[in-house]
């Protein structure tokens, strides 16, 4: 998409025309005190770290109170925003580098309020759930300290008015993710998973730094609002470097939001406790990448600065969407299914932003947070009951765990997009936007997105049907005694189910535009299409696709697909013993050519391992060590050698010359003593004689002189 000068001026004119859209209140005192939102969890995290062990709930109380505070404040801000609109930004200067100011501050506008609300509400519910889930854990207090630190870091990230603070928050959530994934560090696999997450994110972070630096240098400031103002005012060099800056930043976002090919860490991150998976790897942390692109949307929506980046974003989002969804089909671990599903949905959000559907992408982020965390918590409830992550140990749990079953079902309905649950509205809005883009401004990327989205909807329905069938229906194949989880775990499930069911109603095209109003209060206008009515064509295509997927999944994996092998057990064939089921076979559907590829995750992990990790750990590390020891350390080694020589010669001087003086003094004293003692044989008369001789001599001297 190249831009012409005419189009450039068109954009500028449009921005000026729509300038009044951004008139909003400044939020007054509510916004001025919004710095409490990131600060309170950060402070509480440290309080828990030091004092948690001595507090009555071992740190859970403080953590949940902090998150509750954020939830309430976020809700209040949301209401105020919907009533008056808030766009406010506060910054405090903490230092300067040349002409660049380093500031700490907080942004209060629709986007950041959305994130505050999400982190607060979903986080609060997950924390309540975690009290039950983590009961008896050896590192209970530390868990909540790290979790609260994560919440604080995320809030720092989303309230950042400049790149520096954003990166600080980015790193904070990366560290907390590492700490929490590796919570059960007694098992080496968990440590490997934590390292994988951290390292993959680091690769992306390097790109993020580069992008941030390019963008800041081009614009002469770290602050987002200043960058955008100068961008539109024509004072930056972003027209030349914008593509590279945007690409690098997008790569950073890819890492955090697990887009293909940097998705490899998210499935492994399921090694962490389920509350962590629910909050961090479904609702909030992985959405940081989406948030970043949304925050920089004024840059990305103007192709005169971002060039053809949007195409790249859409294509990557679409690829992620479909191919990660395919991987979810073959997983046995229930959390991994949900992990790949998360990656797939993130692909939806990223692609939405790529086609310019700002509101649609954020709406999907919002609804996804509710139903995905609901699904994760439900999975956690199941895992808690059967003591296993694998669906081959589950089955027929609907009888034992009704609350979990019904809430999980609602979450599934929301995810696959069944009317009137949340996913229906948000997913449809994305696909509608892509379709609109494809029909109005024809381009390969948009059509690619539309087709893959529809396929993706089918796949999503298929694998979720598989999950529900294998878990809740059929015969129970495990060894444990499943039971419903305690209230402290089921109440958050119900709350989230309510959210999953109802949040879709916030943005029905043509009827309610609550969500749109919410997120479009920001300092810069967004150029996007708002639908006056749902696109009925798409609904007509997608809904049957989804229902077909559900049906096929149910048939292939449901109770009717189970094979019961009957027979007697034991060596001695006892004719009178009744025949009973000794083995149940299910989940036997295989596509011969496709499934091995899927089971090996497209061999990407192997590629990274052998192509990057092993060479780095082996030869590259050895070479670096050699350079460090011999080349870099040459100067200090030389200095040390010289110093040693100098010291040795000084020692020689010290031993011989300096000590020689003292030895000489001692020896001469001894010699003098030995000589003089001959004059004192112990005979008193001799002493008297000598003293009188002295007297005579002195007297003579006196007299004569």
């Amino acid at each position, binding site marked *: 998409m190249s831009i012409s000068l005419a189009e450039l001026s068109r954009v500028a004119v449009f921005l000026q025309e729509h300038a009044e859209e951004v008139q909003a209140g400044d939020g007054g005192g509510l916004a001025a005190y919004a710095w409490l939102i990131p600060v309170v969890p950060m402070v509480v995290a440290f309080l828990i770290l030091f004092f948690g062990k001595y507090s009555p709930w071992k740190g859970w109380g403080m953590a949940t109170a902090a998150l509750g505070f954020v939830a309430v404040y976020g809700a209040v801000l949301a209401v105020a925003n919907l009533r008056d609109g808030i766009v406010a930004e506060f910054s405090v200067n903490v230092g300067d580098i040349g002409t660049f100011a380093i500031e700490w501050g907080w942004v209060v506008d629709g986007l950041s309020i959305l994130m505050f609300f999400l982190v607060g509400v979903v986080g609060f519910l997950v924390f309540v759930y975690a009290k039950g889930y983590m009961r008896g854990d050896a590192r209970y207090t530390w868990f909540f300290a790290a979790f609260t630190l994560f919440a604080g870091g995320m809030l720092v990230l989303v309230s950042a008015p400049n790149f520096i603070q954003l990166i600080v928050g980015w790193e904070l959530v990366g560290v907390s993710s590492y700490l929490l994934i590796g919570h059960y560090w007694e098992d080496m696999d968990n440590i490997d998973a934590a390292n994988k997450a951290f390292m993959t994110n680091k690769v992306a972070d390097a790109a993020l730094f580069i992008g941030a630096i390019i963008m800041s240098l081009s614009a002469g400031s770290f602050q987002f609002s200043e960058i955008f103002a100068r961008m539109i005012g024509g004072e930056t060099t972003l027209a030349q470097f914008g593509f590279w800056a945007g690409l690098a930043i997008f790569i950073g976002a890819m890492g955090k939001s697990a887009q293909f090919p940097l998705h490899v860490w998210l499935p492994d991150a399921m090694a962490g406790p389920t509350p962590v998976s629910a909050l961090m790897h479904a609702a909030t942390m992985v959405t940081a990448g989406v948030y970043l692109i949304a925050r920089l949307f004024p840059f990305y929506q103007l192709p005169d600065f971002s060039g053809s980046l949007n195409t790249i974003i859409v294509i990557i989002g679409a690829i992620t969407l479909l191919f990660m969804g395919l991987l979810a089909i073959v997983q046995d671990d229930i959390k991994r299914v949900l992990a790949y599903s998360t990656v797939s949905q993130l692909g939806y959000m990223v692609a939405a932003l790529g086609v310019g559907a700002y509101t649609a992408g954020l709406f999907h982020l919002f609804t996804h947070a509710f139903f995905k965390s609901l699904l994760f918590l439900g999975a956690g409830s199941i895992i808690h009951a059967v003591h296993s992550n694998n669906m081959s140990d589950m089955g027929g749990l609907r009888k034992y765990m009704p609350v979990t079953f019904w809430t999980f079902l609602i979450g599934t309905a929301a995810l696959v997009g069944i009317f009137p649950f949340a996913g229906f509205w948000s997913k449809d809005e994305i696909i509608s936007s892509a379709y609109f883009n494809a029909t109005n401004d024809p381009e390969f990327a948009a059509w690619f997105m539309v087709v893959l989205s529809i396929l993706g909807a089918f796949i999503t329905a298929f694998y979720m049907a598989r999950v529900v069938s294998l878990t809740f229906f059929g015969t129970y194949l495990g060894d444990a005694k499943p039971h419903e989880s305690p209230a402290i775990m089921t109440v958050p499930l119900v709350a989230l189910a309510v959210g999953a069911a109802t949040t879709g109603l916030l943005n029905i095209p043509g009827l309610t535009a609550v969500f749109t109003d919410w997120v479009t209060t920001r300092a810069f206008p967004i150029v996007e299409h708002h639908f006056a009515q749902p696109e009925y064509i798409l609904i007509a295509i997608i809904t049957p696709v989804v229902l077909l997927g559900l049906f096929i999944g149910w048939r292939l994996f449901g109770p009717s697909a189970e094979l019961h092998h009957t027979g007697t057990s034991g060596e001695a064939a006892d004719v009178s013993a009744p025949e009973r089921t000794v083995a149940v076979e299910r989940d036997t559907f295989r596509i011969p050519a496709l499934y091995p590829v899927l089971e090996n995750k497209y061999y990407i992990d192997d590629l990274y391992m052998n192509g990057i990790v092993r060479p780095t750990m082996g030869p590259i590390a050895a070479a670096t060590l050699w350079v460090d020891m011999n080349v870099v350390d040459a100067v200090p080694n030389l200095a040390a050698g010289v110093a040693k020589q100098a010291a040795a010669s000084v020692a020689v001087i010290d031993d011989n010359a300096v000590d020689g003086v003292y030895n000489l003094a001692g020896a001469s004293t001894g010699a003098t003593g030995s000589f003089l003692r001959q004059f004192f044989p112990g005979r008193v*008369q001799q002493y008297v*004689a000598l003293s*009188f*001789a002295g*007297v*005579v001599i002195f*007297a*003579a001297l006196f*007299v004569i002189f």
Partner: protein
Amino acid sequence: MTIGDWLSEAANWLFLFLAVPTLVASVMVVSSRNVVRAVLYLVIALAGSAALFLMLGAEFVGWTIVLVYIGAVIILFLIGIMITRAPLTKSVDLSHPISARAPAALLSVLLFGLVGWAVVVSFGSETIPLPDEATRTGEIGVSIFTTWVIPFEVVSFVLLAALIGGIVLARRDEAPAEQQR
């Protein structure tokens, strides 16, 4: 003043008559080969010095010498000789061999020569004014108890200390039974 002038005064003849025995007696003290005789020569020397004090008009000092020295100190010496079982007859071991005596003699002669020469050069022929009154003891008494009363008391303490010290030093050891406790 010449020797002739000096010898023409009668007092000087008396002086010589008293001084020479004193000196000779002291020489005998240091060179006699009999211990008892040495101590007795000491008596003569001290008596001579007492007489010389009388010549100078210091009769109190003179009689004190007779009382204290000759009366008590000599007795102590004799007791000392007795208890240390000194040979009471002639003995050749009383002095160091000649190799030690010669340097000592040299030293003494040097000392005497030095002092004598210094004195003669300094004082020349100055005379002593002899006192008029017969005795000056009363005035000495007054002087002791007014000007010199503190040294007097101190000396009495010294004598006390010497008394006690002497007793302590010369005590016999404890009985063996008590010692082995």
